[in-house]
């Protein structure tokens, strides 16, 4: 099996599952309980938070644990919208956001907020000048995806953050779900106020995530209840999963030291091989893209057909983002880049993890080429 759909989800590390199991068994109590067992659970929760903060280079009190990327994005975007509505009702985002952000903005529009969706260039990138032009006195939030989940394109978040540093009334949210550990990002340096991360994209467990909330930012919480997570995310803490997630953060951060360069090599190799194939166009830009995502159009073949052909050989790649691959529509992200509808429908995504080896990639490429010519021949 060669699994190249790591942007949809990753396989948890065995050590991560061990942590899950141990914590579920030995720290099962509710961290809010006042007794010793509760205290022990609370101490572990604090330790996890401290460790996560260290790995992200932020303060402990700036981290809340969530149920994942979707909740993180929703909490950030709606939390700012409702928390700062006195200040203004204008927000800026892009046309290439993950549905977890896009749908939140659409809901806010229905509630009377004014949202500007910035265009992207052919590489899927917004321009900082466009951000500057879109800013108004009543702009309360700019929300940008760091690494695009379909194309791998990196947005200029540092520049946007710099621009916004002079505008303390406009908060800056970054969806870092795909970028985390693959494309380094210093939250403070980049002037980020809110940043979303998800556990299952980095070999952690499902149902985990972090929202970074810079000190001083006052969100209106999405979930009301027992007041856990500084009152910003009520609900009994999922401690076994949190501990396992933080372990995955630690392990992937460690792997990233040498892993990023290795990924870069792999993706260059894939790009080079695919570009040599007749009728294949690589959509992911050469410069300014993450090392683990490669999007390509296989002209003349429906993406689903090609994916299933590869699957018969034990190779797993995907169409566009997993959340919407059931729809027959072309990818909105690719269309936004000006890729024609036909080519967008024929696009496939290859997404790597630190665990993929050069041997796997060679086998994948051979199979890719063979299947491509088989299918093309069958069609003639």
């Amino acid at each position, binding site marked *: 099996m060669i699994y190249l*759909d790591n942007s*949809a*989800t*990753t396989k948890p590390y065995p050590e991560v599952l061990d942590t*899950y*199991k141990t914590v*579920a*068994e030995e720290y*099962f*109590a*509710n961290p*809010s*309980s*006042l*007794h*010793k*067992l*509760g205290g022990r659970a609370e101490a572990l929760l604090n330790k996890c938070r401290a460790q996560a903060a260290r790995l992200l280079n932020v303060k402990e009190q700036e981290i809340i644990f969530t*149920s*994942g*990327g*979707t*909740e993180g994005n*929703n909490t950030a975007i709606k939390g700012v919208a409702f928390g700062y509505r006195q200040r203004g009702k204008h927000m800026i985002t892009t046309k290439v956001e*993950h*549905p*977890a*952000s896009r*749908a*939140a903005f*659409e*809901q806010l529009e229905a509630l009377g907020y004014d949202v500007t969706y910035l265009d992207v260039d052919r590489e899927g990138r917004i321009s900082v000048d466009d951000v500057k032009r879109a800013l108004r006195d009543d702009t309360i939030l700019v929300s940008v995806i760091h690494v695009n989940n379909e194309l791998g394109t990196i947005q200029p978040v540092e520049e946007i953050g710099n621009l916004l540093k002079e505008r303390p009334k406009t908060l800056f949210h970054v969806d870092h779900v795909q970028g985390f550990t693959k494309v380094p990002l210093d939250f403070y340096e980049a002037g980020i106020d809110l940043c979303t991360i998800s556990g*299952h994209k980095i070999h952690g*467990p*499902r149902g*985990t995530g972090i929202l970074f909330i810079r000190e001083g930012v006052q969100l209106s919480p999405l*979930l*009301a*209840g*027992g*007041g856990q997570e500084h009152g910003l995310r*009520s*609900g*009994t*803490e*999922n*401690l*076994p*999963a949190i501990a396992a997630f933080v372990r995955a953060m630690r392990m992937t951060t460690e792997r990233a030291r040498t892993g990023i360069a290795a990924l870069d090599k792999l993706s260059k190799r894939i790009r080079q091989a695919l570009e040599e194939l007749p009728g294949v166009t690589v959509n992911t830009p050469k410069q300014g893209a993450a090392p683990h995502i490669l999007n390509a159009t296989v002209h003349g073949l429906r993406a*689903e057909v090609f*994916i*299933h052909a590869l*699957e018969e050989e034990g190779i*797993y790649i*995907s169409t566009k983002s*997993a*959340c*919407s*691959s*059931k729809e027959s529509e072309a990818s909105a992200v690719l269309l936004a880049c000006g890729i024609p509808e036909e080519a967008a429908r024929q696009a496939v995504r290859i997404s790597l993890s630190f665990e993929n080896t050069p041997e796997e990639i060679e086998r994948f490429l051979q199979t890719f080429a063979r299947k491509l010519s088989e299918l093309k021949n069958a069609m003639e």
Partner: protein
Amino acid sequence: MMEPIYLDHAATTPTHPEVIDRMVSVYREAFGNPSSVHSFGRKARRLVDEAREAIARSIGASPKEIVFTSGGTESDNMAIIGAAYAKKEQGRHIITTKVEHHAVLNTCRALEKQGFTVTYLDVDRAGRVDVEALRRALRDDTILVTIMYGNNEVGTLQPIAAIAELLKGRDVLFHTDAVQAFGTEAIDVRTLGVDLLSMTAHKINGPKGIGFLYVREGVRLVPYQHGGEQERKRRAGTHNVPGIVGLQKALEIADAEREQRVRHYRALRDVLLSTLEERGVRFAVNGDPDGGLAHIVNLFFPGTNVETLLTALDLSGVAVSSGSACTAGSVDPSHVLTAMFGAESEEAKSSIRVSFGLYNTEEQVKKAANIIAETVGRMVSGA
């Protein structure tokens, strides 16, 4: 130091070993994203479908009426906010009780700030709402009634079926928080007649971070978490497949063992109460004398202070709680006991909650009862 005797299962329960094993094997073998089109995705999707069917069957619902969430708090928020916003053109009045969990109460308070009006019904000294009082509170613009199934502090059961009967034929949605009732009560949404029902897995030896909301077919909610198209657009976010399968497993075990568990908890309760009586401790049981949730016993010890009592019991190796949501180490007087007995009542200041679970034995409970008797005796005599 010996392991404390854990009698705080209403706060959370240990995950059943079979549940953990099942989850770990799902992580190993079916880690795909159910929304992916390849076979990994399909395998994961199949597990989610099967779990949904099994869970629906267990509560007499149909599979598409089950929406998976991250737990009880999210289910409650989704039900209440989702119903309020879906029906806001029809009216803005909501009815609940004074003894709900904070996941319901604080959600209602948040809605009050957004232009909704909320009536908080009183309860009697047993913690029960009066169906007549509910009838009187109903208005033309009432859109939602949310009343819990069984109380998490005192175990009192509310007359859910009678309330559903009263609401029949009215255009009012009925939500019940059944988080504490799963595990000891047989739940059938059709006979109950509710529109919305919340559940969380970690109270019945399932995993944390997973639960569901039952949404009767035809009931429209405004989703509060937007994104991908999971859960028929009612709850976006990548499916927590291992959690969902873990919930299914925990519910299956609980269903199979329910009667046995209820008998066991009742026996434990008898041991607890008879030991306290034998030791001559002055106490009263808070809650419904006609019987409430089998795993919860709320005890009033006149002349004690709950905070001191809890600390002393903890030092002696008995893990119980005050029943109120405790944050930052302070014990606020319980809102439930306050609603039952009044803010200045002795009960609100001198009561603890004992809650039983799967692994408790009669010996443990007897031992805990003796420790409670000694501790209370010391406090009351001022020694």
